[in-house]
């Protein structure tokens, strides 16, 4: 009897909550396994913005996809059908995004990507309800290619994991890099031993190495590269040098140049407040993933202030306006709902005992992606 009344009370509390919550967001992200650091940062950044907005008409349901496409699809179905969410967000990995996003947007749901930006979704497969708040996958790599030209590299050895974002990465680098390719490799996703690849780099006669290996893969590569005695300069995207990775790599990463659309030293009031409150709330420095989660939530909140999510056309227009204070300073969407933004070159430095990045140059200004022309909405 007691149990039943407790359940009844809980059900009533839930019903009360849903009656109040006008916008329900489903977040599917990676919270366990090898890629958990990325998902946790996106979630924490997102929830920090939600908490700061203090709105009681916004409810967020969070689930862990374990970096597995089949689980992500199940979670999306569950969120759309039984949780009745209005908006989905959170996916880190491009192969998971490709499995979830097209089906979700086809059912009339909005999807706000805080990380993955696979090229098909920016070009032919774009959708009016899909907004990418981070970048199209190629972007940071394009900036790295441009930076390699500026530095005078003529012959690059490039490698990335064999999955959609890895292919976008190398395509992006090659699109802007004008020199020769000393070698090109796709490694297994999740690979941890790079001895064979490093031996090939040594033998290739390259003058620089470009690598895209997010999460634990990058940690392994950097440590093994440092121990191998190969001393060619490394260039990478920010994913290989984010705040979560650097402490585990240590000295091996010092001085490496990498490209990012965000860094904690971008000079604006929103960013300064974000870095400070994130650190106070979670006890660590935010990574670029956290900044993307934070911007995604603020974009959503800005649209909620202008339109009702039930009116899809008005809400979409409000999202497209992107009138929120981004931690990146200026932020705008292109016609394919992907960002047009500055991409910076950063260098890994040590501040006291903590390894972090500082901006040393702007790689590309007001950069849009290469697939926008293929997008017909």
């Amino acid at each position, binding site marked *: 009897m007691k149990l039943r009344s407790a359940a009844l009370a809980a059900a009533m509390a839930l019903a009360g909550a849903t009656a109040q919550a006008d916008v329900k967001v489903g977040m599917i992200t990676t919270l366990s396994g090898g890629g958990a650091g990325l998902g946790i940062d996106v979630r924490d950044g997102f929830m920090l913005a939600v908490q700061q907005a203090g709105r009681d008409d916004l409810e967020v349901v969070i689930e862990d996809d374990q970096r597995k496409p089949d689980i992500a699809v199940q979670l999306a179905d569950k969120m759309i059908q039984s949780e009745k969410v209005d908006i989905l967000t959170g996916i880190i990995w491009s192969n998971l995004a490709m499995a979830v996003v097209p089906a979700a947007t086809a059912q009339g749901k909005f999807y706000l990507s805080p990380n993955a930006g696979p090229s098909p979704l920016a070009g032919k497969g774009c959708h009016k309800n899909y907004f990418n708040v981070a970048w199209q996958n190629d972007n940071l790599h394009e900036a790295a290619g441009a930076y390699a030209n500026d530095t005078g590299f003529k012959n690059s050895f490039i490698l990335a994991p064999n999955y959609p974002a890895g292919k976008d990465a190398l395509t992006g680098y090659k699109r802007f890099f004008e020199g020769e390719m000393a070698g090109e490799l796709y490694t297994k996703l999740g690979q941890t031993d790079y001895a064979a690849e490093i031996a090939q780099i040594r033998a290739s006669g390259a003058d620089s190495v470009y690598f895209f290996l997010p999460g634990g893969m990058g940690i392994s590569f950097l440590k093994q590269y440092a*121990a191998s005695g190969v001393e060619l300069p490394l260039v990478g995207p920010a994913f290989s040098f984010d705040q979560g990775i650097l402490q585990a790599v240590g000295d091996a990463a010092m001085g490496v140049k990498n490209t990012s659309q965000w860094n904690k030293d971008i000079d604006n009031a929103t960013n300064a407040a974000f870095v400070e409150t994130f650190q106070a709330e979670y006890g660590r420095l935010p990574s670029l993933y956290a900044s993307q989660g934070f911007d995604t939530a603020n974009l959503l909140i800005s649209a909620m202030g202008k339109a009702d999510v039930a009116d899809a056309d008005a809400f979409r227009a409000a999202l497209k306006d992107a009138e929120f204070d981004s931690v990146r300073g200026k932020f705008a969407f292109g016609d394919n709902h992907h960002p047009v933004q500055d991409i910076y070159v950063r260098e890994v430095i040590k501040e006291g005992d903590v390894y972090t990045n500082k901006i040393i140059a702007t790689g590309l200004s007001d950069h849009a992606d290469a697939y926008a022309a293929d997008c017909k909405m």
Partner: protein
Amino acid sequence: MTILLFIEQMLNGLQFGVMLFLMSAGLTLVFGVMGLINLAHGSLYMIGAFAAAAVAAATGSFVLALMASLAAAALAGALIELTIIRRLYDRDHLDQVLATFALILIFSEGTRWMFGSFPLFLDVPKVLSGPVTLPGGIQFPAYRLSIIVIGLLVAGGMFALINRTRVGIRIRAGEADREMIAALGVDIAKLYTFVFALGAALAGFAGALVGAIQSVQVGMGEPVLILAFVVIVIGGIGSIKGAFVGALLVGFTDTMGRILLPQIFALFLEPSSAVTVGSALASMLIYILMAGVLVFRPRGLYGVA
């Protein structure tokens, strides 16, 4: 490809194989002697790496870190054998898989609770950082060379233990006929705990050695576990010699496949598709090897009928 690069890649294959041997030795003993499928073997590898990283951070000594990895993994192994694993010997393989899979989840979340989700720092000791120059001018990382040496020493020690000592005789006897050896007055329960803890210690040791050049993070054990199963199936379940030969075969096949296949396909495909096809096939190569071995030797290379 030059001959020097080829030799360097052979050394890389050898190092990978030796590391796999440390991981598979315990797995094959436990499977062979006790008939237990232990999916949680990868968690013991992770425990070794985390213990080493924690001790290295606290004391700064890599030797102490290695000792901590052995002790922590052996302790964890003995503990789960006494409390859980021992109840599984008489059960169906499916029950064993279910229970040890649960152990993976418990260990992973437990480690996350203690150490957080972000990778830990564990570096190679200063003396062994950087490369050494081998005869012929090959540059090879000193640390990887030490892994090869340590691994071969452990392999030698394992052979001696199994073939030359009283404990080894008991282990082999337990494999052949466990009722008879119990009837002869050997405390089979103690023997099983010892074998399980030994296998766990080797896995933890491998985790610590490899953790220094890879990423120490939750879930690091599972990819290696799959490879270790491939190794013991190729080598023949229960055979230390089989595990050694199987580990080296897998190490060489995987390393050489990753380098050679894209180059072979480049001979008759355009570069970009050669890279894609070659890389995709390279990641399947060890499973093709396993299937090939099983066609001709269904019980593995050194398996007994």
